């Protein structure tokens, strides 16, 4: 599995971390999510800087290769939900800023009860250029 560097999809996702738990809302799909434990820690690290599984895994103690595999799987699940996107941007070093903890089971809790709001009637974002192009 390729180790892609990811960044948070700032355009579509709003998120807050409260008392060790992250709540994420994808404003284009209407789905919302919660992350706790190590999953929340990874999200907080991504809020600081784009990162790949290798660099994120370094923030946790234990069998590094196993942790990298777990983190890669978790990042893919975030990516599939369009919560994060591949990023070429420079990433800051995460190790100094983060005290290592043991990796807990990485779970992305997904809630779809608001999804129908977005599916019923699509509302397109329009820029100054119109949608999708400006009329001459």
């Amino acid at each position, binding site marked *: 599995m390729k180790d892609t560097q990811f960044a948070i999809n700032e355009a579509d996702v709003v998120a807050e971390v409260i008392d060790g738990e992250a709540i994420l809302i994808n404003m284009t799909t209407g789905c919302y999510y*919660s992350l706790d434990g190590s999953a929340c820690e990874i999200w907080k690290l991504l809020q600081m800087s784009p990162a790949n599984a290798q660099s994120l895994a370094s923030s946790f103690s234990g069998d590094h290769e196993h942790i990298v595999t777990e983190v890669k799987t978790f990042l893919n699940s975030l990516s599939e939900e369009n919560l994060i996107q591949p990023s070429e941007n420079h990433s800051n070093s995460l190790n100094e800023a983060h005290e290592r903890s043991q990796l807990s089971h990485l779970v992305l809790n997904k809630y779809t009860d608001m999804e129908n709001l977005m599916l019923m009637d699509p509302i*397109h974002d329009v820029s100054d250029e119109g*949608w*999708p192009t400006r009329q001459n």
Partner: protein
Amino acid sequence: MLSALAHHPQGKCCDHTLDLYIWDKHTTGIEMPDLPMDLPFNEGWHYDQGRYFALALPFQNSSIWLDRVNNDAIYYSENLENINLAELSAPFLFIWSAWLSKRNLLVAHAAALQGRRGALLLIGAGGSGKSSTALKSLRSNLTYLADDYCLIKPAPEPTVFSLFSSGKVFIKDRDLYPELESAVVGDNGEKVIYQFSPTHRQKLGFGSPITAIMAVSRTASNTTAIVPLSPIASVKRMAPNTLLQVRYGSDSKKVLKALVTTIHAVQCLDLRLGTDRDHVIQVLENFLQ
């Protein structure tokens, strides 16, 4: 169109005013001109670039236009006689959201009631019992503030204000509220819609500091109980609803931050509704009076 706003005081109360023009193509015979850009055909679109905000809602055959610098807004409708009940119960919702968000006020998806100790914000998913709980204030010593949408001034002094004087309840529960029959204006096939001004004018309030946020849920128990709720659980019950239902006109990231700080500034509770409706009223009156 203005019935749900009729409970607000008339006349100028402060320096913040918005001139709202209601443009009905049917009665004026004047159609909105085409914009000089390609737009989605027969689908909704949304524009928000600082000064100007616009939102087209084809399923309502209407569009709204706001100039945040000149404080002018236009509500354009193909035919005001065909306005649906949802629009009538929450008129110009996105104009309020887009204009008031710049004045540190946010439109929240919540019900609200008021007593001597302040206001209760009732949050929860559709069908959780928020609306029916708010309606119970109309037969109690409490005051009705909101059913679906209200205005919140975030922390450090969290306050809730009434926006609309409308309410609704599932059609199957209509007979449980005989005292509200005079306020019925119609139904949308699923819910009965009420307009409480002027029929219940004396029971309508305008706003109050928030004493607590209560997440509402139904139980099979006879009695109603109030138990503590963590801030994160309150955020989960409130934020997605507000951000997704009122997603136009405001900065979602700022709204979420404001909701989180507000939730942390007040008491968060779980209102577990019992089947004894009189006991629900008693519990809320004891809490707020």
